[in-house]
């Protein structure tokens, strides 16, 4: 029997995963959400910003990573919009600015005034070099915004010359350049608070920066998005997805357990039959 189980077609496993995600999405269970302290910290930081103050939102991700970050980015943008914060958008992945357009269009900012309430300055090539260059001189680094307007003429840019003129930097991050580069070039040397909405793979790497205070708040993947939505009192993909997360996590754990039972079973069988 173990032999047979060990040879199970991987497509059966795929089907199991597909169902464990689909069923709770279509028929929600309503298990609720919990809010992590790092998410609460970012929420409180945004809450405490004075209306009219400016925030850099950097879309440092590709479409692959954005799939995981979209819900967190939407919740965050809606909060910034509700607080009346000026959002200065940019990106250090070449796909960043287009994703930023997508994100603005899917948030409450679509009802606000482009150029006054929010801008998309576009992409600056050069990874960490570009972040360092931008930090010292924002209008000089982005002479025109992504839509082709002259940056200094945009009302949203009033009083903004360097990264020191913004109250907070938020990077929507899935790789390099990401949080470490922002901390190295902007957070630590210029004293600007850095926060992030980040893919789950990188969450454990962020704990040293959270504990040392180099990072002031984080939305970790879908769990963080769900938490942020619940703090906002709204319901988006984050909250809707958490039931599916619960069931699929149990499924994966069950697969690991079953796989190990089968492994031990075939191993004891094989020692009689010889060879692996």
């Amino acid at each position, binding site marked *: 029997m173990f032999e047979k189980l060990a040879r199970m077609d991987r497509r059966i496993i795929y089907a199991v995963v597909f169902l464990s995600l689909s069923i709770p999405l279509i028929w929600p269970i309503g298990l609720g959400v919990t809010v992590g302290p790092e998410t609460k910290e970012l929420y409180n930081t945004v809450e405490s910003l004075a209306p009219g103050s400016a925030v850099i939102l950097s879309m440092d991700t590709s479409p692959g990573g954005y799939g995981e970050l979209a819900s967190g980015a939407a919740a965050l943008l809606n909060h910034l919009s509700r607080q009346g914060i000026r959002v200065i958008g940019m990106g250090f992945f070449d796909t960043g600015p287009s994703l930023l357009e997508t994100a603005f269009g899917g948030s409450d900012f679509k009802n606000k005034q482009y150029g006054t309430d929010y801008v998309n300055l576009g992409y600056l090539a050069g990874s960490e070099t570009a972040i360092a260059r931008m930090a010292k001189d924002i209008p000089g680094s982005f002479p025109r915004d992504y839509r082709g307007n002259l940056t200094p003429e945009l009302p949203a840019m009033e009083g903004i010359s360097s990264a020191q003129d913004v109250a907070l930097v938020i990077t929507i991050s899935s790789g390099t350049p990401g949080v470490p580069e922002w901390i190295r070039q902007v957070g630590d*040397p210029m004293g600007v608070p850095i926060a992030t909405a980040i893919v789950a*793979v990188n969450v454990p*790497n962020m704990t040293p920066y959270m504990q040392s205070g180099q990072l002031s708040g984080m939305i970790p993947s879908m769990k963080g998005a769900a938490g942020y939505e619940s703090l906002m009192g709204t319901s988006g993909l984050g909250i809707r997805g958490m039931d599916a997360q619960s069931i699929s996590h149990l499924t994966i754990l069950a697969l690991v357990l079953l796989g190990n039972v089968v492994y031990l079973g075939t191993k004891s069988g094989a020692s009689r039959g010889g*060879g*692996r």
Partner: protein
Amino acid sequence: MTLVKGRVFSFWLLLVIIGCLIYSMWRAKKGKTINIRKIAGLDAIEEAIGRSTEMGRPVHYCPGIGGIGAAEAPQTFAGLAILSYVSRLTARFDVPEIVTIRQPEVFPMAEETVRQAYLEEGKSDAYEPGNIRFLSSQQFAYAAALFGIIAREKPAANFMMGAFWAEALMLAEVGSEVGALQITGTAQLSQVPFFVASSDYTLIGEELFAAAAYLSRDQMQLGSILGQDMAKVIVAAIIITGVISRTFGSTFLANLLSK
């Protein structure tokens, strides 16, 4: 010109670290022998190849799916250095060795590495060019093609050393698919968990570079490793002194670090 406030300690520490590195690289260049501690995964390579000989099955090697022009280049070079060692062993024990490649520019380098290893062992006629295979430059397509090869040729040992990304999850299954002894290594720390959970031995992070430097007797690299060790001792000493004095109520060192 004066030092910027808040960066004074960092500046001096950087100078000390650079000093350690330059000193030890200079010593290494002069021919000082530098020994590297035992690395478990490295010792297991010979055992794995011996096992393949007994079972009469090939070994498989992948030097990562990274290129040679970007940040992950050092990992690719480390993967090739270990490939050279593995190839010498397979040549010596007459075990067929399959090498699969994802990056076109790495292909000729892998070919040359294996050919040279067989030559050094005096087995150039046993060198089989068809065993070095370029599969696909797309990451998931590479992984899928590798599954086909593994299922057909059933290697008894599987080595994967270099830079890996999301496809590491798929590659992790390779060994279990045919019951191969699996030895892996990468400095992509986000992929290490999947390798550890699915391999018999895993070289973690810097271990990959240390193993490669040790096998290839690259003196500069070995010198650099020694210098890094010296820097680690200094950092550890700062932590220990700081913790002890802090425990007894002194914040002197913590304040010094902020200077």
